[in-house]
């Protein structure tokens, strides 16, 4: 970027020392822990990597089938398969320490002590740039309990805030009547920013089988281009309600999409499902955003923001 004649401030400051080199990150659960991308050579240039949801103990995840395609979207019910925080903090972080991109660990749990323990274990570990608290997983029992109740969400964030000084994002679920009330609760409890949104509860039916395609209740999380308009509305609503940074996500697969989120009020964005069908796309998204910034002589990404 040195040779561009743009005076754009490309970095994004999410607070508490978490400064991303650029606003285009890759979303939790769509980039693993970064190691596949490392091998495929698609890491450099990322604004941030948000890891797969990580729990205290290893989890083997839900029974297959776990995914199904819908119109311009996909349903997933992975069930937080992950190796547990010991492996992440003990082995993975070492490898991240040498990467040119901040790695933010997505943390999941089923009660407050769980979340706190995971966050504590990750605190002070070189290679861990921040935490993203997943209070919005639709695919495990009680996964949405914290995310749908402002009071519970506030309590959780308060507890975690007391246990770590790492930059703390809270990932919100859109499956609520009013996402801003949860947003306000976690802001008040000390979150440095919010990530919006996680997946929407959806279902696909196999007509010949007269049953859902996915097991159990048949529900799973919908992601992909189909949800982009919904996620944009959520981000815009949060922007009006909150003072802290917002990381926008939902259906982003192009520079145009990313810019839409920045206009709606996001400070940074994440590319999610698109990593599956266009591995390496985040770099193209960034490139397109930079071109737009140059063509429009932006001095900061905030210049894009809608000011009603």
């Amino acid at each position, binding site marked *: 970027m040195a040779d561009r004649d743009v005076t754009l401030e490309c970095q994004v400051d999410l607070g508490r020392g978490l400064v991303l080199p650029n606003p285009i990150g890759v979303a939790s659960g769509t980039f*693993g822990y970064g*190691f596949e991308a490392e*091998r495929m050579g698609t890491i450099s240039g990322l604004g941030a990597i948000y890891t797969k949801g990580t729990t205290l103990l*290893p989890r083997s995840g839900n*029974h297959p*089938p776990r995914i199904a395609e819908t119109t311009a979207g996909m349903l*997933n019910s992975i069930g937080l398969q992950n*190796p547990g925080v010991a492996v992440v903090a003990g*082995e993975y972080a070492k490898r991240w320490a040498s990467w040119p991109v901040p790695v933010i660990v997505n943390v999941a749990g089923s009660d407050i002590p769980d979340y706190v323990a995971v966050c504590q274990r990750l605190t002070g570990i070189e290679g861990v740039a921040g935490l993203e608290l997943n209070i919005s997983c639709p695919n495990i029992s009680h996964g949405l309990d914290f995310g749908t109740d402002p009071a519970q969400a506030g309590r959780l964030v308060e507890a975690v805030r007391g246990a770590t000084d790492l930059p703390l994002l809270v990932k919100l679920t859109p499956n609520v009547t009013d996402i801003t009330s949860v947003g306000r609760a976690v802001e008040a409890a000390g979150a440095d920013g919010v990530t919006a949104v996680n997946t929407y509860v959806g279902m696909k039916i196999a007509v010949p089988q007269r049953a859902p395609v996915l097991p159990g209740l048949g529900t799973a999380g919908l992601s992909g281009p189909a949800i982009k308009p919904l996620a944009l509305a959520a981000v815009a609503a949060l922007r009006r309600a909150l003072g802290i940074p917002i990381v926008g996500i939902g259906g982003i697969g192009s520079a145009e999409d990313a810019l839409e989120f920045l206009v709606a009020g996001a400070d940074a964005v994440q590319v999610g499902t698109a990593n599956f069908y*266009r591995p390496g796309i985040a770099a193209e998204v960034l490139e397109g955003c930079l071109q737009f910034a140059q063509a429009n002589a932006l001095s900061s990404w905030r210049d894009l923001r809608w000011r009603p």
Partner: protein
Amino acid sequence: MTASSQPSAADLVGESDLTLAVEEVATCLGVDSLGENLFEVLVLAPRIQSLAEPGQFAQLLVDEGPVPLLRRPFSFSRSDPRSGMVSFYLAAVGQGSRRLSRLRPGDQLRMLGPLGRGFSLPETRGTSVVVAGGLGAAPFPLLMTRLLQGDERVVFVNGARRALELYPEERLPRGLSSLVVRTEDGSRGQAGRVTDGLLDLMKGADRVYACGPNAMLSALVEIWEETGPGVERPRLEVSIEAPMGCGFGTCLGCAIPLRLPSGDPAEGPLGLCCRQGPVLDGRELDWPRLLLQPSHLG
């Protein structure tokens, strides 16, 4: 809904070998219609061609638009080092495969590959029995070509429900030691299931390779069990399917049920089809659980 066994960290840490996977914009060379809704799609993809091993697959971005959204995995069916061509053998059954069947020469499409673990090739010469159920023939032209290059004795059992669903004989590599054709309705070759009479063939074999509907593979594994004990059993490798989100080990969508290494009938761990597979040792898989999975092969 959570699989009960606690996986060891090692299971979950497992990383895919992706250092060789490349993204390439392939050019369609043509689509051969093989009767009814079977097709062979030929594309120019020299980089991927040079890396593709039998049993591996590529992820094809069928459409740049968002429908269908996800890439579709297809096994390499044939591969030509001189021209840089690879082909895919497919049935036009849904959104992705139908569009692929309608490609015109010159059309371009993104491909990521090669991906996954393919078939292991013999270190010493011997006899391979290759068993295809319907579309399951897809990976075998390439596999058998490689086997024959190593002077392997190759017996090919080409089975399907009916003649129209058989892989076309004239596209098979030359030099097969034996070709057995079976259709369930007897419309071509011997009437019966592809697994009929397999035990005898297997008994004399060093290796068995199979691909087809899960029910067929499961039956085949049971027949294979009968080849022992007492004698040294042939190595048994099967290629299986799972719905895939990425194809490269990241989405964790392609979970497949494995047996406990101990052979204990208790519920085993889950593996990833795109990482440990799509080709696996037939004994590693938990067939009863696998039979509950959707499969587009039938």
